[in-house]
C-alpha cells in the first residue's frame, strides 16, 4: 500500500509545492501531522525527543511515531514558559514548556531527553513532575573513550528503552522489527546525507532555507513520508535548476540544539553566504554511517553510535587535538571559505566549545565570525550586516 508520501513523490511536485508543504508542517505548532497519524493508526503512539541525539529507531520499532521537539521558534508567544526559567537560561526550554503547558504536546505518550546539556537534563525531571502519565527517560549516551564499555553500556540502555517503550505501547519489538526500523532510519540518514551533499555541491540549487524546512518536516513526518517528500524535492531541484551567484561558502557551527529562526538563516543567505555545512537538527544525521542489519540489532545500533565519527559539543572529544582540527576538517570537507559561529545565547555546549573551535579555525587561517541568537530573535538586520561584511571580506581578501 502506498503511503501519502509515496504518492506525493510520484506526482512530480514543484519545488514550491514541496517547500510549502514542509513550511506548513514547520509552522504548525499543534503538530497536525502527528495528530493525523495517530488518528489513522489507532494502536500507534507518538514519542517526542529533544535535541540532539535520540535513537529514533527504538521509538519507531515500539510502535511510536518519533517526533522532534525543537521549541516554538519565533512563532510562539511565551506566556507560561517564562515562569519556569530565569532570564539567564537559553530560550529553548521555555518554549518547550510553553508548547506542553498549552496542550500542544498532549499527544505524546513518551518523551526522551538526551544528554545534551544540564538544561535538557533537568527538564527531564520537570517533565516527570508536570506530566506523570507520560513516559520520561533521560538518555545518557556513553562518554567513555573505551569502546567496549561504551557499547555494553549503550546497548543496555537501548534494551531498557525498548522494554520500557514496549510497556507503554503494548508492543515490545522483536529483532526483525528492530532491524526494519533501523533499516528505515538508515534510509532517512542516507537521504539527509544526499540532501547535504547536493547542497554542498550546488548551494544555489538547494538554499538552506528550503533544506531546513524539509528537515524540520522530517522531525514530525513518518520516515517514509519524509523520504518521499525529500525525493520529490530533489527531483524538483533537478527540474528547476538555478544559476550560481558569486557568494561565499560558509559553515554554520553551534546551532545544534536551540534552532535559529528561519529569518536568520535567510538573512545569512541573502547577505551573500552559501551555507554549505551546518549543525542544524544534527540528530537526524548524528550516525554518520549505516547501522549494520546483521546480528543483535540493538547492539548493532549501540556499536554504530560508538564507532561513529561525529564530533560535536555534546560528546567528549577523545583526541586532544580534535577540537583544534575540527573546523579545519569541516571547512575542507565542505570546500568552504569561512565559519560562522551562530550559537544560542546562554548555550553551554556551544559557547564552551567555541574558544577551542575558533582557535583551531584561526590557526588554520580560516576567517570566522560569531554571533548569538535566540530562537525568537526578531531583528535580523545586524546578522545580515555582519554576514554581508564577512562575505565581502572573504571575497576581497582572497580566501574565496
Amino acid at each position, binding site marked *: 500500500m502506498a503511503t501519502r508520501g509515496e504518492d506525493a513523490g510520484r506526482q512530480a511536485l514543484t519545488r514550491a509545492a514541496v517547500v510549502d508543504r514542509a513550511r506548513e508542517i514547520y509552522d504548525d505548532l499543534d503538530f497536525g501531522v502527528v495528530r493525523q497519524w495517530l488518528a489513522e493508526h489507532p494502536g500507534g503512539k507518538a514519542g517526542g525527543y529533544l535535541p540532539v541525539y535520540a535513537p529514533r529507531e527504538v521509538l519507531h520499532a515500539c510502535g511510536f511515531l518519533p517526533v522532534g521537539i525543537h521549541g516554538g521558534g519565533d512563532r510562539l508567544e511565551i506566556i507560561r514558559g517564562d515562569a519556569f526559567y*530565569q532570564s539567564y537560561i537559553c530560550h529553548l526550554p521555555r518554549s518547550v514548556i510553553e508548547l506542553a503547558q498549552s496542550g500542544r504536546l498532549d499527544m505524546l505518550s513518551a518523551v526522551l*531527553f538526551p544528554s545534551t546539556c544540564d538544561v535538557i537534563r*533537568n527538564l527531564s525531571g520537570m517533565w516527570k513532575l508536570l506530566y506523570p502519565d507520560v513516559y520520561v527517560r533521560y538518555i545518557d549516551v*556513553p562518554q567513555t573513550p573505551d569502546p567496549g564499555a561504551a557499547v555494553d553500556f549503550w546497548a*543496555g540502555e537501548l534494551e531498557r528503552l525498548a522494554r520500557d517503550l514496549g510497556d507503554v505501547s503494548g508492543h515490545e519489538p522483536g529483532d526483525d522489527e528492530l532491524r526494519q526500523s533501523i533499516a528505515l532510519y538508515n534510509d532517512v540518514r542516507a537521504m539527509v546525507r544526499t540532501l547535504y551533499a547536493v547542497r554542498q555541491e550546488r548551494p544555489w540549487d538547494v538554499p538552506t532555507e528550503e533544506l531546513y524546512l524539509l528537515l524540520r518536516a522530517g522531525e514530525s513526518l513518518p520516515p517514509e513520508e519524509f523520504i518521499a517528500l525529500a525525493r520529490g524535492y530533489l527531483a524538483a531541484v533537478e527540474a528547476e535548476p538555478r544559476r550560481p551567484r558569486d557568494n561565499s561558502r560558509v559553515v554554520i557551527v553551534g546551532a545544534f540544539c536551540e534552532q535559529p529562526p528561519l529569518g536568520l538563516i535567510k538573512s545569512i543567505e541573502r547577505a551573500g553566504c552559501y551555507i554549505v555545512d551546518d549543525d542544524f537538527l544534527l540528530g537526524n544525521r548524528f550516525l554518520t554511517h549505516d547501522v549494520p542489519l546483521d546480528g543483535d540489532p540493538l547492539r548493532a545500533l549501540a556499536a554504530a553510535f560508538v564507532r561513529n565519527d561525529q564530533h560535536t559539543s555534546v560528546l567528549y572529544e577523545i583526541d586532544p587535538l580534535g577540537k583544534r582540527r575540527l573546523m579545519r576538517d569541516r571547512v575542507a570537507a565542505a570546500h568552504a571559505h569561512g565559519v560562522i559561529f551562530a550559537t544560542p545565547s546562554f548555550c553551554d555546549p556551544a559557547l564552551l566549545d567555541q574558544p577551542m573551535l575558533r582557535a583551531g579555525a584561526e590557526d588554520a587561517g580560516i576567517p570566522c565570525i560569531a554571533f548569538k541568537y535566540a530562537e525568537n530573535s526578531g531583528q535580523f538586520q545586524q546578522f545580515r550586516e555582519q554576514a554581508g561584511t564577512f562575505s565581502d571580506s572573504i571575497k576581497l581578501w582572497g580566501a574565496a
Partner: protein
Amino acid sequence: MATVQKDRSMLLQKEMIANHFARLEQAPETGEKVVYTFVPGNLTELIRSFGALPMLPEINALQSGMRKQSGDYIAEAERAGHSEDVCTYVKCDIGMMRSGNIGPGGTKLPKPDLLLLSYTGCYTFMKWFELLREEYQCPTVMFHVPYQGDGVLEPEHRRYMLRQLREQVIPALEKVTGRRYDEDRLREHLVRSARAEDDLVAVLQAGKLRPSPIDGYFGTVYYVGPIFSAFRGTEEGVEYYRALREEVDERAALGLGPVTPDGPLNDQKYRLVVEGPPNWTSFRDFWKMFSDERAVVVASTYTKVGGTYDFGFRHDPADPLGTLADYCSGCYTNLNLPSRIDMLVRYIHEYQADGFLINSVKSCNSFSAGQLMILREVEKRTGIPGAFIESDLVDPRYFSAANIKNRLESYFQMIDARRLGKTA
C-alpha cells in the same frame, strides 16, 4: 572552652590547606604527582592511594572569589574569547592560569600530571577539562558517571562505572604515578573516610537543635571544605572532623549558636533551608544579611555537592571500587529534580524550618535550570512560601547587594506575618 575549640578546627583547617598547597607548589621538585579533578565525584581516596595529590579547580575559583581576585581573572578569560554566558568558575580558572597560575593562597600552582575528568552531575566539567587539556597538554582520563534520571542508581550504571574505574581510571593513575593499584591501601583510606563522614553527619544534623549550633550553609561551606577537597580518607581529615564535632557538641551542650560575621548567633529568630551555591565574592556581606536578621540556616543542599552522607551513605572499605561508584552517583547535582525536591522537603520537615530560600546562580545550569519549579513544588508540598534570589558564584558583576537585601527583608517580614496569622 567553646572559642578555643572553635579556633582549633579553624586552625587545623588552615594548617592542612597551607601544607597541602605547599606540597603542591613543591611537587615539580619533589616529584609528587598532581591530579586535577572536580568536587562532585572526586576520587580522592583512589588518588591518594597512588600517593598523588588532588587539586580541585572549583575550590581555587571559589577562593579567588572570596579574595576578590576572580573579577580580573574572568575579564582575562573573556578577553581571550570565553563567553560572558558560561560558568564563571571555568573562566576564573582559565584567567588565573593565564595570569601565571598563582593560587588564591599566593603559592604557585603546579601543572597537572593527569586530568581526572570525573563527569559527575555537571556538563560543564567535560568542557572545562577539554579546555585545560589544550592548555596543559597532559593525559586526561574520562570517568562517566551516569545521571540518576529515574532517581536511583541503576545496577547497569554501577557496573559501567566499575568497569571504567578498573579499565580506564586505575590504569591512567598507574601510568602517571608509576605505582601499582593497591586495594588494601585504598581500603585504609576508605576506613578513614567513613570515620570523618560519621563526624561530619553529626555536625550537619546538629542543625536540628534549637538553637542550632551550626549555620548549615554559610558556616558549613567551611566545614565541608576538607572532605570535599583533598582530605577525605586522610589522617588530617579524620582529626579535623573529630575536632569539629567536639566543638559543635560543646556549643550544643551550652545552648550556643554558630559564630557569624556579627558574632555568635544564639538568639535565632528564623530557621531556613537553602538550595543553591552561595555567592563567593560578597560571601561575608551575604551571610551578614542573614545574621543581621537573626536568621540561621539549618540545612542546605549545596553542602551535599561533594557527597551526600546524611541519608546514610558512607564509604565502605569492604567494597572499595563499588563504594566509589555509589559515592559519585549520589552527589547532589547528579540527582534528578524530583529527588532534589524530596531532599528539600525532608530538610524543611526534619530541621523544622520556618522558610526556604533558593539562591540561583547565573553560572550554573546544573543547579539553576528548574529551580523555579523546585520553588513551586516545595511550596506546594510544605505549605511554606519560599524566597528566590539571583546572584553568581564568582562574578562580582552579578551580586546586587541592595536587591538581595530587599528581597530577604521582605521575606522575613512575610514569615513574621505568617507567624502572627497562626497565633492570631
